[in-house]
């Protein structure tokens, strides 16, 4: 981990190249994190990967945390690893819920409308019943390892990654409706009906 001072140095260097990209820094329980502007996520990740003296070339994990009831609520976490200096750095991009008013349903609305993210590569950023979904740039071009993990984040939280080569559901069935790992999606929110099998195989 970079220590608290090293973190501020990194912040200062990013600010020189990309003004306004870093919104905040955090140093908690020995783990360093940068809160960044979601619009500049590729610039910051690319800088951390390629800038001389940085070398955070390995993306360990990409995951989402839903900070509800805090707003903005979706934190996209990039756990970067510098394998030369053996340092981890967490980069967080906090996204607004795109449709906070209709967000009470949390995508659990039982309309039959499916998520429109087909295999076409550029899904419309809407979910069931025209629900707006939060968007961020995909980092697959920088870190190919993010492909499955961004699909997982889309699958569970309905985060749309712009420019992802194949943004479809990965663990849930393609015709699943809703974003089950959001905090406003209740545990046990889905009745077990096995309709998929009944419909297809009688």
């Amino acid at each position, binding site marked *: 981990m970079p220590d608290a001072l090293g973190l501020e140095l990194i912040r200062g260097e990013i600010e020189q190249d990309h003004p306004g990209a870093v919104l905040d820094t955090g140093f908690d329980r020995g*783990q360093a994190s940068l809160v960044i502007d979601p619009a500049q996520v590729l610039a910051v990740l690319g800088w951390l990967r390629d800038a001389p003296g940085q070398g955070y070339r390995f993306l*360990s994990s990409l995951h989402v945390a839903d900070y509800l009831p805090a707003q903005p609520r979706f934190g996209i976490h990039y756990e970067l690893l510098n394998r030369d200096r053996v340092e981890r750095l967490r980069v967080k991009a906090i996204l607004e819920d795109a449709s906070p008013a209709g967000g009470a349903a949390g995508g659990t609305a039982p309309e039959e409308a499916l998520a429109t993210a087909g295999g076409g590569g550029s899904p419309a950023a809407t979910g069931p019943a025209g629900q707006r979904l939060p968007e961020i740039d995909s980092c697959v071009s920088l870190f190919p390892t993010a492909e499955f993990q961004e699909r997982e984040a889309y699958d569970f939280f309905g985060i749309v990654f712009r420019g992802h080569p194949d943004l479809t559901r990965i663990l849930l069935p393609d015709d699943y409706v809703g974003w*089950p790992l959001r905090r406003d999606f209740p545990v046990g929110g889905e009745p077990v009906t096995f309709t998929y099998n009944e419909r297809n195989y009688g």
Partner: protein
Amino acid sequence: MAEATESRTEVMTVNIGPHHPATHGVLRLVVDLEGEVVRELKPVIGYVHTGIEKSCEDKSYWKVIPFVERMDYVSYFFQMEAFCGAVERLVELEIPPRARYLRTIFLELNRIHSHLVWLGTTALDLGAISMLWYCFRERDKILDLFEMATGQRMHTRYFQVGGVIEDLPLGFEAKLRDFVADMPVRVGQYEDLLDRNEIFLSRTKGVGIVPRERLLELGVTGPLLRAAGEPWDLRKTFDYLAYPEMDFKVPVGTVGDNYDRYRVRLAEMVESTRIVEQALDGLPEGPFIADDRKYVLPPRSELPTSMEALIHHFKLVTEGYRVAPGEVYYAIEGPRGELGCFVLADGSAKPARVHYRDPSFVNLQAFRDMSVGGYVADMIASLGMLDPILGGVDR
């Protein structure tokens, strides 16, 4: 990689799985074949998705442990350590030295167990059926050890936040020493069976090579990365449990083909045995769980006599402990690579988010690079050498 030079035929899309003995679980592969040659491959996963991460949000911290064990059902001690370690870092709880050593012993036994399951099933895929019986014979000895110490053969719930639940029983050490003396001999026997086996060699040598840079791009860790010559092992690089005090080597390969993957894992079994032996020799005396009554259950013997212990016990069992808001990512070296656990605490007695960075899930992305351009039979060999556990992939 096998030369694919036969005459051109039409491309056929073949579905393999999800229920197929060669996919090591419930993995579905959509494969484009031109004759016997794989031209495109897409893994389709999610058939054993059970929503464990969501279920964890509805359980108090100590009840999460049995859930996460069931993700990667072959390396359950690692899942426990990732979660318990993350929570210990959240509440800033130091575990006693004896607990660190005990955890190290069981993690390394679990690594041997996991590699034995891998070796048996993968050799079975390649036609060496007797390997399965030999590997499962040794695996059973490890399960006997687990049962003796924890009461369960699998999914033991042995690690607790703060340490481990029980000390070692009488007679365990002797039994473990027998196993430690036996295991390197057994690994030597496996090598005798496979290392100069003509069929095994021609099925694995030069097959499934992925360049080291590509593996790093794809986020691949563990034996797959080390087989390509990258000596990256979190046990060496990060400071956790008793690994800094242990003397062990990190085996690496040179070519990065399936044969190297096999060699690296076999060498890791021997190194793990050495770690177990050293940890047993250096096992410190003292408590096996931290003495912090806010997080750790009081000893059973105190309950009839101490009102305070009774209250603590009641509070911990009914409500659990509250964890101050914060988030921690804690990664350890699992048998398949970097196993990371992210825990977000919101101040209540239940975690707001538990996420596992499962190495099988990330490593599976390298499968296309390993297989495309080779024969479909080599694809099966590469899948075995990739060693995905679908319970961990799908969670």
